[in-house]
């Protein structure tokens, strides 16, 4: 823009994501000053396996930090702190002395630990560690991935037990390297990332010795668990040498922070390929009986931790991509709205995209996708409408589960992510939730959350009230749907969901 940005100082946020690493420089108003981004390779050694080259990631992180600082036309002296946010659960083990990864990082999407997770469940099943960790035994989480590496890389377990090996999620890897690597690097993680390992006790916020023992993970490899907003160390080299590294948050928690959901009951939903909905439950780790996950939302310095309930939807934006790439019914993702807007309603059609089973709140592996209610009247435009409604109803199922688990009514939903440009979807969401849907002015809530936490740690912002004052409403959609219509449509949706279940027979392998 033409008008001058407020003069410095600034905060730099690093977002080490699943497909790319980015660095964004923010000013005190939370406005973006400069961005740099670089994608890294997705490695697929076998079906279901996904890996990243951690050395490539660290190189890219350094480059995007240099790039963003250069584009902003500033120096280390203008930057008060560096904040980190990262793809969650992606697991790396590296050599403490050389800084060399012992294996590619195993990405959160990787399903190689499916069988191991079933085995770890023993006679109890997938909720064996839920009381302590808030998580079901599932292949996403880091603990079983560490175990797989220790079991499958030659000699690794011995070296790990001898204290030669370090474990980290991507926050730890970036911080360790930023603060010197083999030359005095700080080996830490934050409570939000640690809460996705299945190794941390949610109540004590310490590594749980019993679970470490059951999982076969030696304590020697683990980083120290710290808060999400405190100075972990200083950058040792690069353009930002000398700047404090002062925050770490898993990406979804960072978005919760960036959306300034600081009060109990405040929730955000990020609409991308899939969708992640997090609700602040304040000082209580609320146990979920409705298929949600309990996680740490954030912890600022030595203040009490703030917990969150999390619900994830596997297929939201991905369904629109499927309509574009597999069905060829639209040329671009944005066109789904044009097609859907050409009709008044769904024409009786409902689309449940249980492509790889049903996630929260059902957790049914045996479900597969269904388009229900078809008649000769139904056109591709009705299907397009059903596609958008699927995202809205799946969100409704998560918010219903959150209400049941937490007893808190959702006052409004703060949204971010690519699909928020879809006006019809946002209106539909407000209609089916019967609550206002609000889009903030800064779309980059994930990076902003990391910047906010780092800024708080160094006193760049005085408190969370100051961050709230920065939050700006860019758009708000209010419910317009008749209550009786909403009830009827929800009932139809639930009927369609029922028809997805039990598609796979017991002995059938997943296809």
């Amino acid at each position, binding site marked *: 823009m*033409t008008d001058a940005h407020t003069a410095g100082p600034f905060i730099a946020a690093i977002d080490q994501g699943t497909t790319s690493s980015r660095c964004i420089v923010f000013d005190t108003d939370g406005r*973006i000053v400069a961005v740099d981004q670089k994608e890294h390779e997705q490695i697929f050694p076998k079906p279901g396996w996904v890996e990243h080259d951690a050395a490539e990631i660290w190189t890219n992180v350094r480059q995007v930090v240099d790039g963003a600082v250069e584009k902003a036309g500033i120096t280390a002296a203008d930057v008060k702190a560096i904040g980190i946010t990262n793809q969650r659960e992606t697991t790396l083990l590296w050599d403490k002395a050389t800084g060399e990864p012992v294996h590619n990082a195993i990405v959160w999407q990787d399903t190689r630990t499916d069988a191991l997770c079933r085995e770890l469940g023993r006679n109890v099943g997938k909720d064996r560690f839920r009381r302590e960790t808030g998580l079901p035994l599932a292949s996403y989480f880091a603990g079983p991935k560490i175990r797989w590496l220790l079991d499958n890389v030659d000699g690794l377990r011995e070296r790990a037990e001898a204290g030669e090996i370090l474990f980290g999620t991507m926050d730890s890897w970036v911080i360790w390297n930023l603060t010197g690597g083999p030359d005095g690097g700080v080996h830490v993680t934050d409570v939000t990332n640690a809460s996705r390992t299945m190794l941390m006790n949610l109540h004590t916020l310490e590594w749980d010795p019993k679970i470490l023992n059951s999982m076969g993970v030696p304590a020697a490899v683990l980083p120290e668990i710290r808060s999400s907003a405190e100075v972990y160390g200083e950058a040792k080299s690069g353009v930002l040498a000398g700047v404090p590294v002062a925050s770490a948050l898993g990406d979804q928690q960072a978005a919760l922070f960036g959306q300034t959901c600081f009060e109990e009951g405040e929730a955000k939903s990020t609409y991308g390929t899939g969708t992640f909905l997090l609700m602040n439950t304040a000082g209580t780790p609320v146990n979920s009986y409705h298929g949600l996950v309990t996680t740490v939302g954030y912890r600022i310095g030595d203040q009490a931790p703030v917990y969150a309930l999390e619900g994830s939807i596997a297929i939201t934006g991905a369904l629109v991509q499927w309509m574009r790439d597999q069905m060829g019914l639209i040329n671009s993702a944005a066109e789904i*709205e044009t097609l859907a807007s050409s009709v008044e309603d769904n024409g009786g059609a409902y689309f449940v995209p249980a492509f790889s089973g049903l996630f929260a709140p059902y957790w049914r592996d045996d479900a597969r996708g269904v388009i229900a209610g078809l008649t000769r009247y139904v056109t591709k435009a009705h299907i397009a409408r059903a596609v958008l409604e699927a995202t809205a109803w799946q969100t409704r199922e998560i918010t219903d589960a959150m209400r049941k688990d937490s007893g808190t009514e959702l006052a409004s939903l703060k949204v971010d992510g690519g699909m928020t440009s879809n*006006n019809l979807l946002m209106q539909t969401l407000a209609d089916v939730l019967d609550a206002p849907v609000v889009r903030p002015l800064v779309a980059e809530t994930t990076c902003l959350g990391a910047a906010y936490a780092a800024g708080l740690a160094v006193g760049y912002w005085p408190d969370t009230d100051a961050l709230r004052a920065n939050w*700006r409403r*860019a758009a708000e959609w209010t419910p317009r749907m008749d209550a009786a219509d909403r009830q009827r449509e929800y009932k139809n949706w639930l009927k369609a969901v029922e028809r997805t279940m039990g598609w796979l027979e017991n002995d059938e392998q997943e296809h």
Partner: protein
Amino acid sequence: MARTIQSLERAAAMLRLLAGGERRLGLSEVAAALGLAKGTAHGILRTLQQEGFVEQDAASGRYQLGAEMLRLGQSYLDVNELRARALVWTDDLARSSGESVHLGVLHQSGVLIVHHVFRPDDSRQVLEVGAMQPLHSTALGKVLAAYDPVAHAEAVEGGREAFTDRTVTKAEEFEAVLDLTRARGWASDIEETWAGVASVAAPIHNRRRMPVGAVGVTGAVERVCDGAGLRSRLVAAVRDCARAVSRDLGAGRF
């Protein structure tokens, strides 16, 4: 039959030749296939290349169909695509201007609002996506009428209702406003549609320099105007935003 133009026939034959499967052809192959001298073939290929209908591979020097061929088949810009492309830029405009931002396209005989960013204060505002605004009196409408011949015809033939005593309704005066809009690249509306409200807008162009929409800020006249009219800082911010969206749509720098 009317006399035909030989070089156009040859150019059409070349395009058909290059469209025959996923292939790249060298100059001598093209010339031989069409029975042309190399120099003649080269001249036609170079012209097609300038127009974007043919591309030359930098490494091998071979020719293939250009991206412009594909674009000809799909020239219509989806308004929801326009909104998706404009989102970050319009957010930035709202933040830097402190006023609300609207993105409009021609629809029937008015301006259809396809995107609206709230004024970034904490006041209650209502989303205006889907609303219609008049062509002849709003800044968005004047921009569309100045740059898009279809919008121009609609505005000239329409009633041009006087919403306030500042609304320009006479044909000659209206044309003069459009001339001024084209000359300076932006349009304004100072209490011509709503009392107490002023706005400024600039055109968004696609990759073929066709006007596809307009973007503008709107606010209380006391805030957005100074003694000399629209604040120049706002005009510059709106034009920057329009240029950024146009660039995202593939328009060259201008």
